[in-house]
């Protein structure tokens, strides 16, 4: 009996303690802009867009008067609840990551007109307190398609071939692939070559094994450069290229740093700088210039998309110069990226 009494006293003490909880989140100071990020079900450690977005928010946390926190969603039914969590704690800006959160974000933006919202990869929502954040990745993948074609000719002048290993066939992925293909076609038109463009959509973002199998069969068919394009599945394609002594091109971030095993075969990576984009949106909020009702478009011009630097693979100076020229032409809108 005494034991139970002790335990119940402990429990009651715990409850009394909870009365005086923290008013401010851990590490936040009064007057900071509070920015919350709600991830999709991929989680924060996806080595892709959730992680990259959080890096941008952490930079904002360090450099601006901003305090950033995140909640990882475990299911579709959690999205609204997690957004509510931040909104009820009077956050100033809530960033929701990915098109899966589109509906929940739209509803909550209406529910909380005083809170600002930013949503990644969605440009179709309109609300005065909501900013879409989208990317013209085709502007970067077109020149990279050209570069890949050039490198394929370098490797195998007789039968050059560029191949992609894609994740799910959804618009954000197709945008890369279509522009890659247009870049290869542009190379052929300029040089009179016949670089082939092939590839597979695996239908999954989290299947490195499938990506590797597909990468191997593309290499069997003569692929010289593999474009990884679809989370962990794309990374599997790059692993196949490494094993078979072919070249690869990464995606989303500079994968030279995120794929230590495959880094020496990476020519470059097509970067979709989510970190820069969210940083810019947070900065605009701090400067009272929040693009509510509008869309932030990451492009070559504002550094939202781009090429990662060349690392271990030597790109011929002539080809590199041509790519530079194409980048300038695309930025000026003189070349059609096919998207």
């Amino acid at each position, binding site marked *: 009996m005494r034991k139970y009494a002790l335990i119940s006293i402990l429990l009651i003490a*715990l409850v009394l303690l*909870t009365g005086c909880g923290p008013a401010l989140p*851990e590490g936040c100071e009064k007057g900071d802009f509070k920015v*919350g990020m709600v991830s999709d079900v991929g989680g924060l450690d996806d080595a892709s867009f959730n992680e990259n977005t959080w890096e941008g928010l952490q930079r904002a946390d360090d450099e601006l008067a901003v305090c950033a926190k995140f909640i990882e969603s475990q*299911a*579709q039914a959690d*999205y*609204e609840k997690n957004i*509510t969590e931040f909104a009820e704690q009077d956050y100033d800006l809530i960033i929701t990551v990915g098109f899966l959160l589109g*509906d929940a974000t739209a509803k909550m933006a209406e529910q909380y007109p005083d809170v600002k919202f930013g949503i990644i990869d969605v440009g179709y929502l309109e609300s005065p307190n909501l900013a879409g954040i989208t990317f013209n990745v085709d502007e970067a993948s077109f020149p990279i398609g050209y570069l890949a074609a050039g490198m394929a000719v370098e490797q195998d002048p007789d039968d050059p071939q560029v191949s992609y290993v894609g994740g799910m066939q959804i618009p954000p992925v197709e945008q890369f692939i279509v522009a890659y293909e247009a870049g290869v076609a542009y190379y052929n038109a300029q040089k009179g070559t016949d670089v082939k463009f092939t590839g597979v959509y695996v239908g999954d973002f989290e299947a490195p094994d499938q990506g590797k199998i597909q990468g191997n069969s593309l290499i069997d068919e003569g692929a010289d450069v593999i474009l990884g394009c679809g989370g962990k599945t794309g990374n599997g394609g790059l692993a196949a290229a490494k094993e078979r002594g072919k070249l690869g091109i990464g995606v989303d971030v500079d994968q030279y740093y995120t794929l230590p095993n495959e880094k020496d075969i990476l020519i470059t990576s097509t970067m979709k700088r989510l970190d820069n984009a969210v940083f810019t949106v947070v900065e605009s909020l701090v400067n009272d210039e929040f693009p509510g009702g509008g869309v932030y478009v990451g492009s070559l011009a504002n550094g939202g998309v781009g090429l990662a630097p060349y690392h271990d693979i030597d790109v011929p100076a002539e080809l590199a110069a041509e790519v530079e020229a194409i980048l300038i032409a695309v930025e000026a809108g003189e070349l059609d990226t096919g998207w």
Partner: protein
Amino acid sequence: MTEQQGLENSFKNRIAAWPLWARLTSLAALVGIAVLSSKWLILFLLIALGLWPIMVLLGLGVLVLMSKSRGGWPWMKDWLKARLRQLAVPALSVLAALVIGGLLIMFTDQVVYQTIGEGQIGKGIGMGFANLGRAYVALYQGALGSPIRIVSAIFQAIGGEGIKPILGAVRGPSDSLVQSVPYIFAGLAVALGFRAGLFNIGAEGQIGVGWLAAVIIGFSFPGLPGFIHLPLAVLAGALAAGLWGSLAGILKAKTGAHEVITTIMLNYISFRLSEWVLCGPLEDVQGTCRTKEILSSAYLPKFLEHPVTMHWGFMVAVAAAAATGWLLFKTTWGYEMRTVGTNPDAARYGGMNVAKTYVLAMLLSGALAGLAGVSQGLGITHNIALGFSAGYGFDAIALALLGKSNPVGVVGASILFGALRAGAARMQSLAGIPTEIVQIVQSLVIVFIAAPAIIRGIYRLKDDDSESGQTVFSRGWGS
């Protein structure tokens, strides 16, 4: 004791003596009053949950009053002892799991172990305790709200500010109950299977099927009044999932295929089919991989305004638990299921149709699992999108074990899991502790309850024989 029972019986007898129409009318009247005042009942329930220590004290007070007429303190002591004995193992398991989870929170923090590594052990441990306090306070508030905030909100409301502050203050309890709804349904599904000797691992797939079917009905019939549309969507979801589940029952009955294998495989089939359906024929806007929004006539109504998301799904879940208990323990079907679950050979010898019972049990189990998806689809998301699967169907196996395959136990275990899950988001946003810690705590609770000897050993509790040998789990593999 006997006097009390006599009183209760005479009350029951008096009601039983009423004519049928009178009993039905008074039942309908009671339900009607409950529905009409449901908003206030729910608000009271949520406040009571948030202020549970006060409720416990009130309960004790009532007990003291009651004990006066039947033997005073000794009677009360016995009564409390019996209740505490029942609750001891689950409650102490939760406590032990929270302690271990707390150690993880303290010592997985980089700053803490760096400080300790630099030799400042006392400072490091102090920081660890500070982290722990912050984390568990946030977890508690996310799950049950802050009692002080609730009390001050009540005073604000009395002062004429309306119920808006109260709504904000009881968001925690409301979230906990909302999160527990799919757990209750899915846990009941697995528990019912266990009782019939079936290990239904397919709840996850059945949830998806039910969700999808309910949403399809939900957006398909514009113009239907709510009182037809909503039940239709609910029943469609339950039926579709039930039929999906009964496939495994039919396979077992006809061919002897083990339901563990077939339900796992049916899971994959339903995952891949729903991916195709969501990104293909039923996709609403190109590139979003989700269906249309259901019509408002098929919404499971909410009791109160945002941010309290509590919807009728919780009431349906509690009713389903009552119905499952009644079916299992008060009907012939239930008796047959339990007999088949204990020993199919004896059941066959006794003249029961074992094959029929397998199919029926899988049908009902699937339908219950489907209702988990239905409540999410009609109550929360109002559509179905890629990534809907949250592992409720797999957690449900643990919940059925935790609740000892007993509907009341499943409801209790589900509310515990729902509360932990609701608190996890607050813990992550306020204290930066990953939600995974909550998964670890949940897993530890299950380990401790599955192996009560550990808890009895730690706390030196006496073994209590009444508990062992009651539960019938699925029989051995390949039997």
